[in-house]
Structure formats: C-alpha cells, structure tokens
C-alpha cells in the first residue's frame, strides 16, 4: 500500500506541475468564457448556451488532458529510464500501474473541479440561478474520463504514447456511439456479424449512458438509479482494464 501511495503522490506532482496542463486549462476557461458571446446571439437562451457549450469545452479539454497525460505516464518512465530506480526497489508492477492511475485521477479531479466550478459560477451569474445539474454533469464527465485514462494506460503498455493517445480518443468516441453498436447486434441477419457486434459492444465502454449533459440543459429527464448502475459498471470496467494493463506490463523488460 505504501508503494501505491508513494507512486500516487509522485504522479500527482508530476502531472500537476506540467506547464502544458496549465496552458490547456487556461484555454478551456477562455472557451467557457467564449460561450458568453454565443449566448449573446441566442435570443435569450444565454443560460442554455453557456451550459451546453461550457460542458462541451470541459469534455473536450478534459479529454485532451486525460489521453495525452495518461499516454505518457508509463511511456515516459520507460523512455527516461526512471523505471530502473523504481523497480530496483520493492515496487510491484501492479502497484506502479495503480499508483499512476490514482495519481492521474487526482490531477484530473483538480482540473475538472476548477473548470466545473468556473462554469457553474458563470452560469449562475448569466442565468440568474444556480444549476446543480451542471456540477453533476461535470462529475459524470470525470467518470467517463477515468475510463478513458484507464484504457489509454492499457494501450500505452502495448505500444507508443502517440498510438495510445489516438486509441484513447477513438475509444471515447466509440463509447458515445455504444448504443448504435447495440442496435447492430439486433439486426440479426448474419450470426458472425451479430457475434462480432456483441464483442465490440462489450469491449467498448458505454459512455452515453452516464452522459447527463442533455439533462443539464433540460433536454432529458435523468434516471439517477440507472445512471448510478452505469457508473458502477464503468468503475468495474476500469478495474478490469487496469488489471489487463498490469498483466501486460509484468511481461515487460527494461
């Protein structure tokens, strides 16, 4: 446990001190503020535009931070040979992967909390009333990005950082279209296609089920019981993905 805590703290410091992160967050905040301009041409729908485009900015920039930082976490240690110092000590590969992931979770929490609170306050000022669903939407974005980070870390144990980042983004997009894959499984003309569709549906995390942005702008009624179940599913998905990453990383030699 000590090792996981040590790697977690180290990873948090590594990522939170990255200047590129600060630049990305500043850009995100500027994008959110840019929503004010969009609101001004919306004929009285400033609140909705702020919420919608603000959450899109939080999702987009959060995704950039998640995949590019997660992709480099393991890869950088191997490339810069700090793994020699790490694994010559009693640190298991599992503790390393877990610590890296949890440390990045902490960094992402700080980043998203900052962006989310900024958006919440701006919406409150513009719309004249506080919208708790904006904060809940940001929490759900965070849960999705946790899964993206886990998948990206998994891919980074297999290949290069760039490839892991690209695949992480692809998984995020595929996760938004997961319900379409489910529809494919029910077309049922060819058993092979159906079976393949089921495999893809199971492998790709279902992000659309926990995305409550539509509910935040009043477009959808939110069934919190179901959303809670899907969140638990994503957390289990993360555990399995990290376990697979550990199995692959154990085979690596330095």
């Amino acid at each position: 446990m000590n090792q996981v805590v040590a790697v977690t703290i180290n990873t948090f410091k590594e990522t939170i001190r990255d200047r590129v992160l600060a630049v990305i967050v500043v850009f995100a905040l500027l994008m959110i503020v840019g929503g004010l301009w969009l609101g001004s041409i919306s004929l009285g729908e400033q609140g909705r535009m702020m919420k919608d485009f603000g959450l899109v900015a939080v999702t987009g920039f959060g995704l950039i931070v998640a995949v590019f930082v997660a992709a480099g976490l393991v890869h950088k240690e191997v490339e810069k040979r700090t793994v020699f110092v790490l694994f010559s000590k009693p640190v298991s590969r599992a503790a390393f992967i877990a610590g890296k992931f949890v440390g990045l979770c902490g960094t992402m929490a700080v980043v998203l909390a900052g962006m989310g609170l900024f958006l919440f306050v701006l919406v409150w000022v513009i719309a004249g009333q506080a919208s708790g669903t904006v904060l809940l939407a940001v929490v759900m974005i965070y849960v999705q990005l946790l899964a993206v980070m886990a998948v990206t870390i998994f891919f980074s144990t297999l290949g290069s950082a760039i490839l892991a980042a690209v695949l992480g983004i692809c998984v995020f997009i595929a996760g938004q279209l997961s319900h379409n894959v489910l529809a494919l499984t029910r077309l049922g003309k060819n058993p092979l296609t159906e079976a393949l569709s089921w495999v893809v549906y199971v492998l790709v995390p279902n992000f659309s089920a926990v995305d409550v942005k539509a509910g935040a702008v009043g477009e959808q009624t939110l069934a919190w019981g179901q959303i809670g179940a899907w969140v638990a599913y994503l957390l289990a998905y993360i555990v399995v993905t990290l376990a697979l990453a550990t199995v692959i990383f154990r085979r690596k030699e330095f």
Partner: protein
Amino acid sequence: MLRRISAVVVVVLCALGVVAYQVTRPAKPPSSPRVFVPSPRFFLDFSPSFRTSIADAYYLQMVQYYGEHANSDRRLDSLPQMVELVTRLSPHFGRAYLFGAFALIDAGRPDVSYRVLQRAFKENPGDYRYPSYLGFFMYRFGKGRAKNLKAADWYQKAASVPGSPSYLPRLAAALTGKGGETEKAILMWGQVYGAGDKYSRQKAVDGLEHILPKDKTARMKAVAPLYGTMPKAEFEALIAELFKGYAP
C-alpha cells in the same frame, strides 16, 4: 545593426498590412438563401448529449440566418429545414420551436409553422404556449368556415394544461360562439363565470350578452342548460346579471 532594423521594419510593415486589410476589406455580401442543412436522421445516431450540442449550434446558425435574410432579400428558403433539424434533435427546446414558428410565418410558410407547433405540443404536452399559439395561428391564417372552431379547440386544449393563464378559456368560448356553436359557447362561458374572480365573471357576462337572444323566453331557454353545471348560488348570480333590466 542594419540587419536588425530591416527585420523590424519588415515585421512592422507586415503587421500593418494585415490589420489594414482586415479593417478595410468590403463587408461580406449576404450568403445564399439556400444553405446545406443535414437531415436530422444523420445526427439521431449520436448520443443525446451531442445531439443537444449540435442542435444548439444549428439554432445559433438559424438565428443568424434569419437575421441576415429578414433584413435583406427576405428569402428564407432553408429555414424550414433548419427548424426541423433543431427541433428534432432537441425536442424540448422551447425557444427554438417558438422562434422557428414565428420566423416561418415571416418566411411565408404558416403551414410549416403550424406543423412545427403541433410537434412541439406533442413533445411537450405540459407547455400551454404551443396550443395557445396554434389557436392564434389557426384564427389568423386559417381558411374556411371552420377555422374559428379549430382555433377554439386549440385554446381549449391550452386552457386544460395546468398553470395556463385565465384568458385562454375566454378566448375558447368567444371563438366557439363566433364559429356558430352557440350552445357549446354558452356552456363554456358558464365555466368561465365559475372561475370565480370578478374580472372573469364580467367577461363571461359580456360574452354571453353577445350571443344570447334578446327575447326573454328565448334567453331563458338558452341559459337553462347551465343549471346543474355550476353551484346553485353562482347560477342564480349569473341569471340575475343576465336578466337585469328584464321585467320579472
């Protein structure tokens, strides 16, 4: 030193050129009234959150498109497709329906406007505004003898939505009478009278005066169906007002 000065001069001249070009270039001519609008079916496969964002982006485009053409060539050829796209992707976006409906009137397409508002009410049955505007559009743009009754029907539906304003039943009653269904109109005015406030009662009396016969016997016959549809005290108060000035 000379090289450095030359480099600075070149950079400054380029910067001035960029600014001058941007500031002095001619205003953009109005875009074509026909623009490409994708079908909603294309986006319906996306997850709900992204459908909402896409709808909002196209809503802003729709507002700009309307503003640009309403003030120039007054050609809004692609407006129906835009309204369709935004409202299909975001079925609870109230302002999109209302703006779209009125903009479509401007575009000379009250038929499309009518259909948009019908869909709005189907998707949002708890919002009285849509049937209320449908009643207005039917009254204003409808054709044929039955338009008043159809308008009245919409106002009646609007009035039945919880939280709807009190003037809607009055409009329904007035248009029913205007449409020739006098017996039904009398009953509706009776309900308006029963709403309770002084203003509604006065309006109900005025409305009934407008459609009731002047002859006392005929008038008594006409108001008789109201008995049993309202509390006895209210019925007697209404009768007293309707027969004020008539010999006992």
